[in-house]
């Protein structure tokens, strides 16, 4: 097995596919319906969305690798507890790092950093991929899925902050002249229900482009 592994280049076509399909066709949020909770709750502003996306990339990449290394030693009966323990330890690390270097953002995210533990993307990918594949493909699969999740998060955060506060990443984008001329920020974009509607719109656009994803009902 080791010899096979040596022959296959690190970024073979198959491995590159692991990284790229979750961005579109196999996107965790819009197609697999995993990890919706946090995607909607933290996206009122761009900054927490970016921080959340990076945290999930870190937890997913490392976690999927660890699970893949452990896959032959864990008895299937207790695998859920093992997976939860791995995730919880990584999330505690991320939480402590955030508190140390970005305290304000960590306050804004409040319980949602902790909720990465029950983010279904992570458990879902551990079950579907990490438990049955080698460490390097698992790492790529983890990073790929987390990025597919991340870009939706950042897109929703971008639209909501632009429409809702007229700023991007805290900087004023809509010029003062617009406000003087009577432009008003759309207060509804900051409210939680708008996130659902924006994700709905993203799904609509994606399925319009990629007709194969359309559901029966």
């Amino acid at each position, binding site marked *: 097995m080791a010899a096979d592994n040596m022959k296959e280049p690190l970024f073979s076509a198959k491995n590159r596919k692991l990284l790229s399909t979750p961005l579109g066709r196999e996107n965790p949020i*819009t197609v697999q*319906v*995993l*990890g*919706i*909770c*946090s995607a*909607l*709750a933290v996206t009122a502003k761009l900054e927490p969305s970016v921080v959340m996306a990076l945290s999930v990339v870190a937890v997913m990449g490392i976690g999927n690798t660890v699970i893949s290394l452990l896959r032959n030693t864990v008895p299937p009966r207790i695998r*859920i*507890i093992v997976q*939860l*323990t791995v995730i*919880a*330890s990584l*999330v*505690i690390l991320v*939480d*402590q790092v955030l508190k140390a270097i970005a305290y304000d953002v960590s306050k804004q995210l*409040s*319980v949602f950093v*902790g*909720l990465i*533990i*029950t*983010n*279904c993307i992570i*458990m879902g990918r551990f079950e579907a991929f990490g438990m049955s594949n080698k460490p390097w493909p698992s790492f790529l699969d983890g990073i790929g899925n987390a990025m597919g999740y991340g870009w939706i998060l950042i897109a929703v955060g971008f639209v909501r902050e632009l429409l809702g506060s007229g700023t991007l990443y805290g900087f004023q984008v809509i010029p003062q002249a617009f406000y003087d001329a009577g432009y008003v920020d759309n207060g*509804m974009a900051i*409210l*939680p*229900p*708008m*996130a*659902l*509607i924006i*994700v*709905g719109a993203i*799904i*609509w*656009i*994606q*399925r*319009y482009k990629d*007709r194969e994803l*359309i*559901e*029966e*009902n």
Partner: protein
Amino acid sequence: MQDLVSIFVKSIFVDNMIFAYFLGMCSYLAVSKTVKTSVGLGAAVIFVLGITVPINYLINNYILQPGALTWISPTLADVNLSFLSFILFIAVIASMVQLVEMIIEKFSPALYSSLGIFLPLIAVNCSILGGSLFMQERGYQTIAEATSFGLGSGVGWFLAIVGIAAIREKIRYSNVPAPLRGLGITFIITGLMGIAFMSFMGIKL
């Protein structure tokens, strides 16, 4: 007593798990195809939230909080174990779900078979862990308050999932644009329901 009732009502309507915090969305979207299954899942969530929030309240108050260990010895007053809360809370939730599953299987096989796979899925339902984390963050004073918060959140989740399931059963007969069918329209309906629930927001209890 009045406090308890107001916490209960507030966590059903004002701080609804689905419409205000988006917790437990994954199973909410995946299991809401028919009213029957969603009633089963909703009842299980009420049950598990009602058990795990008070247990985690005890763990938080007697083990994790800064100064919580003074009941062992006054010298431990400086110990702050709150960084362990994620791992302990999730362990409690996973074991409670396992326990509930075994109890139901033993005493009510009919209910057990009707809940099926949803029981183990509850362990990774964000609203359960979210309930415990909100309980910790908001610092409820007594175990009774924590319990009524847990039960109220569960009832709120139950109402939300039964509501969307009823709408989805009806929408099958409507002419939704093809790319929006299924997941897309469910997102948008949930958003509209969320806007309706926001009318409870200003209410002071």
